């Protein structure tokens, strides 16, 4: 029997996307008037689970109870009617309108807008919970944290009693985070129930009453925050070691290829994304890069590829003939013109890696369009290359001219990796190469990476699955909060050791 003291109760909720199971038989509950953290690595299904509460997805199996009543949530409107409000990671605000206009958007009411009384009602809400917000300010003049405030007030204005916040602190400075937590505590004290999705352990310990942990779509368990520690939560998050049967040949004659010295990078919000990072990547080895997502992995690869402005530090490249080139502050175009064979398989495959509406030859030409005689581009070579990739990598596609966005995730990745290794790279960088792929495709990608390694390529592989990194890589570099917290030998390291390095920053903050 569902407990009516629970604001929300999920029972056996399962959600599949094609063959990928995003949530597998998840059961958890949110008590009235508490703050519950949902903790898990990227891809562990936290957001998918919450999207089923906010009406964006519909569960394949399972039951949802709100205040003890079984409910069906088919749209965001249904969720509002149940007084559930979700604050998404990507804000849904209209830039040219004011905060107040955004807040009342789509609400029923008299035709003639009475902004004065709307403003008053907003002021009342902001005063009650301790927000700072000028209802007449335009969104485009606002900082990220102010926009977040608008989103929260929007949900409260619509009468939400249950708030779900998806990674609310990802874009905030520590001071702004502190202020947000203050507001969340005020809301809790006035009886609201709050779910906060996060992967930052120190925040979990600071704000929540209970923590529910998800791992790879499965529910691991819920613990009282009082009884939890960084170590115990890390263990729940990463889980027990799973033995994987991935081939790992020994590196042959490794030579340094990429040397990064004291690299410092700021992201678009001006926050420190990489802080004094130094390491080297050698030929014939796979260097894994581990870390909780958002620790600077993306910026690191993009800085090497020439896509990210560098604030400080140096990136040196040694070619197979032992000539050293300086890649610092070179753009991707300049690196290409220096004839450095650097390949990058980005995390965002269909955004940054491939053009979704084009077929395979067109996508091959993204790299080779400069080749050809005179003003004509060479179309035959890319078409031949596409056919070879289809054959060699078993790409399942109706024809090479099918737009790549119509292919399944695994095949899209094969097209992208196939293109990148076709240029026989000296350095190959891959970000989350198997995200969203099924087991078979994943193993095919591992094999491709190993093949490159045997050819003497220096492979950098950003991954989220520690079991895979431990089985595939030769060395693993661990990033935490943009700093290198360790470089370990993957043959001897343990999962716990890496897990602790990943959260090293968090435990330090705890002590401080």
């Amino acid at each position, binding site marked *: 029997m569902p407990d009516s003291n629970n604001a929300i109760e999920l029972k056996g909720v399962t959600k599949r996307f094609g063959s990928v199971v995003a949530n597998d038989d998840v059961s958890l509950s949110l008590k009235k008037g508490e703050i519950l953290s949902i903790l898990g690595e990227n891809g562990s299904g936290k957001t998918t689970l919450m999207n089923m509460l906010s009406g964006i997805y519909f569960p394949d199996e399972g039951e949802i109870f709100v205040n003890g009543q079984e409910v069906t949530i088919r749209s965001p409107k249904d969720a509002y009617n149940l007084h559930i409000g979700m604050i998404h990671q990507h804000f849904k605000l209209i830039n*040219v309108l004011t905060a107040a206009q955004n807040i*009342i*958007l789509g609400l029923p009411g008299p035709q003639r807008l009475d902004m004065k009384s709307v403003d008053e009602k907003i002021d009342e809400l902001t005063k009650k919970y301790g927000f700072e917000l000028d209802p007449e300010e335009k969104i485009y003049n606002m900082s990220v944290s102010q926009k977040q405030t608008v989103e929260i007030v929007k949900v409260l204005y619509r009468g939400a009693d249950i708030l779900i916040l998806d990674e609310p602190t990802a874009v905030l400075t520590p001071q702004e985070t502190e202020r947000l937590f203050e507001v969340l505590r005020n809301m809790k004290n006035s009886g609201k129930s709050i779910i906060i999705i996060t992967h930052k352990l120190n925040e979990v310990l600071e704000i929540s009453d209970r923590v529910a942990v998800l791992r790879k779509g499965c529910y691991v368990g819920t613990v009282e925050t009082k009884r939890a520690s960084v170590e115990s939560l890390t263990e729940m998050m990463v889980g027990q070691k799973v033995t994987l049967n991935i081939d790992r040949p020994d590196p042959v004659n490794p030579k340094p290829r990429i040397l990064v010295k004291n690299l410092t990078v700021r992201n678009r919000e001006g926050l420190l994304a990489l802080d004094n990072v130094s390491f080297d990547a050698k030929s014939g080895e796979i260097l894994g890069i581990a870390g909780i997502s958002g620790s600077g992995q993306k910026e690191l690869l993009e800085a090497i590829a020439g896509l990210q402005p560098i604030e400080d530090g140096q990136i040196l490249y040694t070619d197979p003939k032992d000539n050293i080139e300086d890649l610092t502050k070179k753009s991707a175009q300049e690196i290409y013109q220096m004839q450095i064979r650097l390949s990058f398989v980005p995390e965002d495959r269909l955004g940054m890696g491939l053009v979704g509406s084009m077929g395979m030859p067109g996508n091959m030409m993204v790299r080779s369009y400069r080749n050809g005689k005179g003003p004509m581009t060479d179309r035959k070579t890319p078409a031949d290359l596409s056919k070879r990739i289809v054959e060699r990598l078993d790409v399942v596609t109706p024809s090479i001219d099918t737009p790549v966005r119509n292919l399944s995730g695994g095949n899209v990745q094969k097209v992208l990796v196939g293109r990148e290794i076709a240029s026989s790279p000296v350095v190959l960088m891959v970000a989350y190469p198997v995200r969203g792929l099924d087991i078979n495709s994943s193993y095919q990608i591992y094999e491709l990476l190993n093949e490159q390694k045997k050819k003497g390529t220096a492979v950098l592989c950003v991954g989220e699955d520690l079991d895979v990194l431990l089985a595939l890589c030769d060395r693993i570099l661990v990033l935490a909060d943009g700093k290198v917290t360790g470089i370990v030998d993957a043959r001897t390291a343990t999962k716990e050791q890496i897990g602790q390095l990943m959260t090293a920053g968090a435990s330090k903050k705890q002590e401080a």
Partner: protein
Amino acid sequence: MNLIITFIQQAIAQGIAILFGATGEIMTEKSGNLNLGIPGIMYMGGISGLMGGFFYELNNDNPNKWVGVLCACLCCAVASAIGGLIFTFLTVTLRANQNVVGLALTTFGTGFGNFFGGSISKMAGGVGQISVATTASGFQTPIPGLSKIPFLGDVLFHYGFLTYSAIIVSLIAAYILKKTRTGLNLTAVGESPQAADAAGINVTKYKYVATITGSVIAGFGGLYFVMEYLGGTWGNNGFGDRGWLAIALVILALWNPANAIWGSLLFGALYIIDIYLPGLTRASQEFVKMSPYVVTIIILIITSKRNRPEQQPPASLGLSYFREDR
């Protein structure tokens, strides 16, 4: 003095057709639809209104001018609404490219106008023989009394009811956009259909209603031209490029129908100023006729330099919206 009065009257007469078109296009663009079919829809509105009046007068020995006006207005509204419906169905429901559909609709509308214009010319006995004098006189009736005031009456109260309607419709549209819930929601749809959808606004409904309403408003610009300006006759391609001027005026007005009122006067004045400037050769006349477009380009440059978000086109103008597109 007389020359100035004539100039002002002519400028207003030229401006009103453009004002209808611009107001309609602003309402349409506010929903995120860039309807380049407006010039064609104005042709459709014009010829359909003319046909309404023509067949009413043809079948009645003793036609009443106000019944003729009603027939013309109804036919104009229905034809323009169908034009807008074609555009919305293709671009919103079938998600076809808005530019392609718009341009096709303009080509179609112009041909539609010329074809039926030619047909009823033939029925009337030859080119230039169409005359719906009774109905047109209804459209041309000035405000009784007030139009008799010297100077002011000539400048301000000398026009038919469509002229005043154009200004009133623009003011109402401006009020809706700025002050009402519907206007706020409409703005949201044009700026970010994703955000509007998440806020529970029916994006498809808003796009349909705004685009069809906008097309009807624009269609009356064609009707105004045929009835009040030409006095109820038809010349092939007679409407000229006024439809495109209306779309240029949308930019000049910075998507605010109230601005379109003075903008249309400016455009109307620039459109005919070559006749009133003494000493122009044939070539320099054509040069002066470019001025409305030059003004539009200058305004575009200034507003993009100043880069005020409120003065930019709706953020998702020209893009089709599909909820499952992520």
